[in-house]
Structure formats: structure tokens, C-alpha cells
């Protein structure tokens, strides 16, 4: 009888511990959100935006950026806030940053198109258009993850061949079709994803910028030099060289010129 009671006690204790383990995450969720957490700051910034306090929203969003945080919605909201303040250059800058993380976001596409609608950038050269399309197919992380999966799968096929030859080869000693197809497919996909990852990485590490304040591109890095073309806020540029306080830039239509560094925000 005593044994029975003792057994019941043990079972009830085990159930209590299990129950606590099960409900612990829920209890954690019920706790109030830490007001200094990045998510809370993001929510506060959104509240400012909704009230039309765009400058306050920008301060909070930028606080997160200064803390080293990044996400597509963060840059997108920052772009929206700047646009509402009439800072088209900054808006395009942050939309472009967001585009690297959420390239397929329909809202982002619409807002970026809207922000660029009155920006004179010239006709984009065809190779830049192709390159831009390829490097914005997916975020860099997606390509790296995809390449890593293909890489593991490729080596898995090779390891299988080494360890289980009977499974991967037919009696005549030829590799089985399924194994050959798997190897070729994973190899091709590895090559493709790795190439796209490399291309996207190189693109993102090529110095690029956006014109923040209207200015002129000149033939020489001197204040009084002849003006080559005018740059309106939001114009996207490639930065080719830096000299003193000047940047040698190339517009999307291939036109080059020297611009004062302070006019350009780097991506």
C-alpha cells in the first residue's frame, strides 16, 4: 500500500515538472515586452510614423541602425519616413538598402518606383539592367544558404559512392542513373547558386551611392570646373574613385563625373 502511494507521488511530481516545462514558454510570452528591445523600439518608431511625427520615427529607426541592426522592413520604414519629410535622396538610399534584404517585396518595389519617378538617371545601360536583375533575385543570405545545401548534397553523393558502392553502381560497375543525375543536378545547382552568391556579394561590396542633395557632376574634382550633368536627389551612382573631398561617380547611363562627397550617401 505504501509502495502504491509512493509511486503515485512520483508520477504526480513528474507530471508537474512536464507541465511546467510545457507551459514555461507561454509564461515567458506573457511577460511584458522589454521597452529597450529592438522590436519595441521599432514599434515605437512605427507609432510616431502613424502620428505623422516622421522625424521622431527616423530618430528611433536610425538608433536601431546605429546599434548594428538590419532588416528589410526597418530600412523600408526608414525610407518611407524620409520620403514623407521630402528627403527623396535618403528615401532612395534606404529603399535600396531594403532591396538587398527583401528584393521581392511588392510594397518596396512600388515605393522605390514612385520615389525614382521624378529622378533623372538617364537610360540604364543594358548590362547594368541585367546585372541588377540578377543580383536582386534573392538576398545574399539565401544564395549562400542554397549554395551550402547544394554543396552538402554534392559531397553526400560522392561519399555515398565511396561508402556504399553497391548502392550507387550496377553489377557492370557503371554508376546508377539516379546517382549520376543527383550528382550532376547538385553540381550544376552548386555552380549556379555559388555564382549568383558571388555576383551578389561582389555587387553589394562595390562602392555605390545615392545623391542626397542636388548638385552637379563636374569634369574635374575642382569647385569651379565645368559642369558635366546635373544630379538630382535620389540619383543612384557607382563610386569609382575618391580624391580629396570628391568622388568620381558613374550614373546608371554610364556618364561619369566628379561630385562633392558630402552630396552622396554610400549604400
Amino acid at each position, binding site marked *: 500500500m505504501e509502495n502504491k502511494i509512493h509511486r503515485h507521488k512520483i508520477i504526480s511530481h513528474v507530471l508537474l515538472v512536464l507541465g511546467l516545462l510545457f507551459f514555461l514558454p507561454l509564461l515567458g510570452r506573457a511577460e511584458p515586452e522589454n521597452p529597450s528591445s529592438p522590436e519595441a523600439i521599432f514599434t515605437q518608431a512605427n507609432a510616431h510614423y502613424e502620428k505623422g511625427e516622421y522625424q521622431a520615427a527616423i530618430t528611433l529607426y536610425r538608433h536601431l541602425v546605429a546599434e548594428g541592426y538590419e532588416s528589410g522592413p526597418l530600412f523600408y520604414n526608414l525610407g518611407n519616413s524620409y520620403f514623407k519629410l521630402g528627403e527623396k535622396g535618403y528615401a532612395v538610399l534606404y529603399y535600396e538598402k531594403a532591396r538587398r534584404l527583401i528584393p521581392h517585396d*511588392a510594397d518596396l518595389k*512600388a515605393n522605390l518606383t*514612385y520615389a525614382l519617378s521624378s529622378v533623372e538617371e538617364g537610360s540604364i545601360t543594358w548590362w547594368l539592367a541585367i546585372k541588377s536583375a540578377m543580383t536582386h533575385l534573392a538576398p545574399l543570405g539565401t544564395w549562400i544558404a542554397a549554395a551550402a545545401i547544394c554543396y552538402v548534397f554534392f559531397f553526400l553523393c560522392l561519399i555515398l559512392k565511396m561508402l556504399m558502392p553497391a548502392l550507387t553502381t550496377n553489377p557492370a560497375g557503371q554508376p546508377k542513373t539516379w546517382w549520376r543525375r543527383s550528382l550532376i543536378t547538385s553540381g550544376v545547382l552548386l555552380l549556379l547558386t555559388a555564382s549568383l552568391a558571388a555576383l551578389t556579394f561582389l555587387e553589394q561590396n562595390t562602392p555605390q551611392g545615392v545623391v542626397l542633395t542636388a548638385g552637379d557632376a563636374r569634369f574635374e574634382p575642382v569647385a569651379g570646373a565645368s559642369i558635366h550633368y546635373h544630379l538630382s536627389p535620389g540619383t543612384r551612382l557607382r563610386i569609382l574613385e575618391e580624391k580629396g573631398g570628391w568622388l568620381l561617380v558613374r550614373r546608371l547611363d554610364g556618364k561619369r563625373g566628379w561630385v562633392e562627397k558630402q552630396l552622396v550617401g554610400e549604400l
Partner: protein
Amino acid sequence: MQQRMAKILFYFLSTLCMLMFVTPVFAQSAHLALEATEIPVGGYTEMRIILENASAASSPEIGEIDGLQIRSRGVSQQMQIINGQVTRTTTYNYLISGVKPGEYQLGPYTVKAGRQNLTTSALTLKVVEQAMSGPATSTGEENSRPSGGDPLDGQLFLRLVLPKKQFYTGEKVRAQIKLYVGAVVLQSLHYPQLNQAEVLVEGMEQPVKSREVINGQPFQVLTFSPELTMVKTGKFTLGPVRTDCSILVRNHPFSSFFEEFFAEERPLQVQSNTLDLEVLPLPSKERPADFSGAVGQFELEVMATPTEVLQGEPVTLKMIITGQGNLSMASAPVIAGLEQFKVYDPQKDFLLTTDPSQEKVAFEQIVIPLEVSTTSLGPFTFCYFDPVTAKYQRITVPALPLSVRENPDFQKTVLPPGGHEPGAEFGQDLVFIKNHPGRLRQTSEVFYRQRWFWLIQYLPFLFFLASYAYRRYQQKQEADTPAARSARAYRQASKALQSISGRLTTAGPSPGLLDELNQLLRVYLGATYNYVAAAITANITDELRTKIDDQLLLAMIKEFFEQYDYYKFTGATFDRHAALKLINLTEDILYGLNAEQHKQNNTGRRGDPYGK
């Protein structure tokens, strides 16, 4: 002498390099100029083909024209540096003589300059029967008042020319303001001024230079071609156009070479003739409701990207209007059937055209399909007023095909049956901010910036290397080489010995056990040293001496076979103790022989265990 030559070569190459670096910055162009556009039969005029910043590989092909005689007068070159900008001009000169009366088109001529072909415009030369009697008159030209007076005496005058006298409100026309410069030296010139409330003047750019002969006197003509837009209706007098300039007046009887040093600069204002014009209002009776406000002659082109979208995804429409006329007041083309779309305001953008008489405007508009059933977008209609036919015209571009797929994440705004939300208007604005921060993380926390991620990428490769090494080992073991056979035999013998040992423990010694041990060792020796197992006896040790260095091992083998013969053939009792002793001996022999094999393999005797 050599030093001087080197110096000259250095300067020459430096200049060449400078020109090479400077010239590509400026555009290459070719122009055609006529000294006079009208000559009498038997008269002459000069034609020039001017190349700017280009050097032709060969002279332009002029060809022969029936009614004209054309002779080359050589090539001249000029280089001008203004504010550090270098302009190189190459001029091909031709003398043209009129043979028969008529109108002749000269050009366009193509000149090959470097990799590109430069083409000039075309000009018309009129050859008349009689000698010209006075300044040429143009359509719409009246009240011509060559100004300047004494001492210019008709040597400097301005002329305003329009192609017609009657216009419509909003109509755009290119005027010509011609400054005729005769036997005076023009020192400076300001842009002509035409300030009138009835017209809007745009595009007063650099004048085009040409030459004309009036009453036998050559004039240099500077032609300004501004665009005039008629903004008020009614009759009015256009002009005069005024321009401020200064000329040099010679006060000293020196030759013309010193003229510039001793001449006096005299400012003056030149004014043109006036023109009586009438501007009519656009007909209001038949004005269509969708009239865009454009006046002229136009074409419409429409593009949509993408044409395959998910429900709720934006489609960008690009509507390009090209033509001659005024598009500054034009609104976007009307798009029919937009009930199933969310529509943003169009963005208007003026585009550059290669032909300065053409206007080009692009309207970019974003529309978002709300229904999956949508299959097309449009049609598109653009209505404008054509001043030539004096009628409203309409261009219609058929609907573009559009494929809309269902989007499970799309939440459609429910609109009342009438269409738009009450009080709300269509317009363009930003799409609202995101409520969720997404994967908000520190830049350094991204997985591909972590060292562990790149370190684990080595694992598949290392696993592969290990499996490759294992496979090689397996293959070696399975191969038909002496070493492989020896290894296999050792494994089999060890296994069999374990089995015998186990049976001895459980069932005790048996006569069969002795034979099994003998068989086991003979098989091993046969496989390892390539003997016939059945023929192996105690004498084998004599033969093995050449192959095994270890004398103790040879003695042990000999002892085994002697023990076997003893128990087998003398009838001695093969008890547990004897069996155990023989098993241990066999085990020692197997172990020793295997070690000897390894030793021989490692010291280069591998593959030659038979001593052959």
C-alpha cells in the same frame, strides 16, 4: 642635334597625348553650310562641310548633280581653345555654280570619322533665272525694317520669320530670328529678346551660322530658332525682337590687320521686323470630354511590365507620346476598364529626342490588379487637337494582355459597388510602413558572417576524404594480391581459431579438433606463401627459411606439425591441456606470421612473400 630632335619629338608626342585625352570628351558632329541659299544661273556660292572634333578618314563623297557644277576648294583645319576646352574644326570647301534654274537638294552627306559615320543635314539651293534684286522674303515676313542706319547702312539687321500667320491657342511653332552681319565687325552679341504676353518663348539656344548673298553682297547670318507657344487668343503684332550688340568702328586709316587695335567699340541695339498674327481659340463645340490639352500631331506607344503578376502586385504602365507640338499641358492617356485595379497617379516625364522638332513625353503609372479574373489592361486613348486639320484627333492603343494569379496573402479592400470608396480619391502615394520588423538582427549575427558557418563547410569535404581513404583500403583488401590474400587468410584463420577455442571450452577436446587446427594452419600457410594446403607437412619449415627471418617462428611451426603428428599417429591422448597448448601455439604462429608479413610489406618485400 640628337637632343633637339628628341625635344621636338617629346613636344609632338605630348601634344598628341593631350589631344587624345581632351578630344574624346566632346561630341563629334558634322554640319553643312551654304554661303547663299539662292543664286542666279551662272552665279556661284560656297558650300562647306564642317566636322567638329572629328577628322575624316577620306573626303566626303559629294557626287554630281544635274544642273549644278561642284568643285572642291580644299580642306582647312582650325583648333580653338576656350576655357581649356579644345574644339577642332575640319572644313571641306566646295564652290557651286548654278547651270540650270531649279531647286536642288544638297546633302545629307556622310563622312567616316574614326569608327562612326557622321551625317550632315540637307540644304536646298535655289537657282533662279534672273539675278536677285533684293533681300529674300519669307512667308509671314512683313514690315521688315533693316535697322542700324548710318554708318551701318543696312550692314546689320535682324529679321523675324514665322512659317504662318494664323495659330491656335497652345500651338507651338519654331520661329527664326536671323541676324544679318554685312561689312561690319561684330564685337559682342546678346541673345535676342522677345517679351510679349501673347507668346511664351523657349529654347533660345546657340545660333547656327550660315552665309547668304543679298543684292550681290555677302552676309554672315546668325539664326536663332526659339520655340513660341501661343498663349492668348486674338489678333496681335509679334515683335519687334531686339538684341544688344557692339561693333567695331574704324577711326584710323591703317590696314585691316591693325583694325582691332585702333578701332572703337560701339554699342547698339538692333531690332527686327514685326509680324501681324492671329491666334484662334480651340474649337469648344466639338471638344471631346477626354481632350488631353495637347496641341500638335502625336503618336502613342504603351508598355506594361510585368504582364504576369500575382493579385495585388503592381504593374508599371509606360505611355510614351511622341510628335510635333505642345505637350506641356497634356494629361495622361485615358485608360478604360480600370474598375478592377487600384490606380496611382501617373508621373509625367519629358524625354530628350534626337530630333529637336519632336517632343517626347512619358507617363508612368502604377496600377494594381485586384481581381484574378482580370485578363487585360486598357485600351488606351489619347485625344489631342491637330492645328493642321483644325480637328480633334484620337489615338487608341488596344488593350494589353495581363495575367493575374491568385495571391493567398492579398487582402482586397472592399469597395462599394459604385467603384471608389466614398470621399476617397485616386492619387499616388507611398505604400504604408511595415508593422513587423521582420528578422531584425545585428549585422554581425547574420549566419554567413559567422566563423562556424564557414568552418562547417569543411566537414563534407573532410568526410569525403575519409570515405575515399576507406574505400581505397577496402579495395586493397578485396584485391587479388598476395598481401590481400594473406590478410584475408589471417582474418579467416583467426575466426576459425576463436570458434575452435570456444568449442573446447564448451564441449571439451575431440579428435576432430586436432584436424581442424592442422587444416587451419595449412590453409593459412598455403594462402600466404602460395603452397598447396594439402601438401604442407613439418618439412615446410625448410622451405620457409628463405621467406621467414624469424627462427623462433620457424621452430614454432615445426613444433606444431610435430605435435600434430604425435597426437595423430602415436595414439597419445589429446586432452584438454594438450588441446589448449596447441591452440595457443597456433595463435602465436598466426600472430607471428602476420606480424612478419607486415614487416616484410613495410620493408619493401611486399608483394613478394614467395621469394620468387
